[in-house]
């Protein structure tokens, strides 16, 4: 089973937490029989669209504001959609995933893990 683990963030402050987690997983994740894992860090959710096709599952990690620092939160697509601030600058994670699903590129199995950070910065 081919799984893609994606960290979304930016180089700045606590927004980089998912990148750091993905980097550590890439280095230290023990092999799991039957699973082939790939890791990728992204700065822009729109890049998800090009990447998710062809995998059996996608695990997305992203920083979560308004949650206790360091806590993990398993989110559904609907919860993710509700948590994203209405903005039109670019596709958000929820919108990018919805578009990938509409195009039939999104694997059935999608896990979204929010990692609590202290600030919204």
């Amino acid at each position, binding site marked *: 089973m081919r799984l893609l683990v994606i960290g979304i963030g930016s180089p700045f402050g606590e927004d980089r937490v998912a990148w750091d987690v993905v980097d550590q997983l890439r280095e230290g994740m023990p092999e799991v029989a039957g699973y082939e894992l790939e890791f990728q860090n992204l*700065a822009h959710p729109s890049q998800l669209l090009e990447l998710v096709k062809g995998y059996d599952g996608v695990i997305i990690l992203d920083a979560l504001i308004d949650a206790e620092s360091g806590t993990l939160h398993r989110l559904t697509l609907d919860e993710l959609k509700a948590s994203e601030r209405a903005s*039109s600058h670019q*596709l958000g994670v929820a*919108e990018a995933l919805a578009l990938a699903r*509409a195009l039939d590129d999104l694997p059935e199995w999608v896990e979204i893990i929010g990692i609590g950070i202290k600030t919204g910065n």
Partner: protein
Amino acid sequence: MARKIDLNIPLLTRVEGEGALDLSIRDGEIENLALRIFEPPRLFEKFLEGRGYEEVPDIVARICGICPVAYQMSASHALESIFGCAPGPWVRAMRRLFYCGEWLESHALHIHLLALPDFLGFDGAVEMAEKYPEEVRRGMRIQGFGNALLRAFGARSVHPVGVKVGGFYKAPEKALMDGLLEQARELLPQAEALCRELAKLELPDDHQDFVSVAMRHEEEYPYNEGRLVSSDGLDIAIDEYEQFFAEHHCEHSTALHSLYYPSGDGREGKPYLVGPLARLNLNRDKLPEATQALLSECGIAFPSDNMFHSAFARAIEIHFALIEAITLLENYDIAEPSAEVSPSAGVGYGCSEAPRGILWHRYETDDEGRILSARIVPPTSQNQARIEEDLAASLRAFGLEREPEAIKLHAETVIRNYDPCISCATHFLQLNIER
């Protein structure tokens, strides 16, 4: 009995950045119409003061995630004009190629994800993707190619970091460019198909009286160089801009409104149009032969005074940008990527054609090249008065007695024609209708 309807679009969607529209209709007449840009002021001009000239391209790239190249190009040209630096033909050609990348990613995003859902009757790109997956994929392929061109020069597609005053930090590898050439050749027939499809869309037959303003260059479709021309006969050097165009603060907007003063005496200012439709209206004859032939075949006459032809103009520019990119990539060779710069004191101007229209910069430097003052006039603030004028005319033509939901959708469609980049302009949509 007096009838008053208030309509409010609190947050405009499928535009870059945040703004709202307030509309009051009393007894079938528009009482108030304001495109309210409320994204906070960006203050970039002040951030630049006291900074070294070397920092400017990276700082101004931060103004916009969609059109950073435009900011980098206008700024580099302005500073080079002060320092007497002439980077030569390789840099000039590569700047055009870099700019092709930006037009392609910005135009493809706007047509496919932001504007097309309006014309095909969908709430958004996600709903449209279920019915028209190939069209959406095509848009994403063109956008992806544009981004790849930006990465070739800028290391990343958003806020690229490869530009310096004098040229680029690094010349891309030949093998990378050969790969991009192959991709561009594959995309060209898809761009042709896009133009043909958009030409067949049923659009409102809405003719309006407006002035188009764009750059014009003797030999080429404009990117970085040329004079400023208008559809009513203006033809000036870029350093004469301030005599004919002025920005004003409007209380309802954190973006400045620009007006055009045809007589150059600061009187009788009027709105004007910048961007793909204005560019094509003024530069059709400078398109490559293949694009001109395609345009003729599509049967939409230019100059056009129908703002709904903007999306088609954008598609034609995608075709142009691919042909231009192919030509430039076919001739690509690695060379010295920048010219030497010796800073000096002075005042310089830069103007280039951002995806949304002319982006004008003015800088004053001291003798070490530090920025004493900066002025940046983005395309969306130049279009803002035109958008309000268009909205008033379009909504009257559409019918002010219609249901608020229909008025709201029509208003949003009109605004999206301009592909407004609110984030750039704030130094944006909610619709508030009152009637």
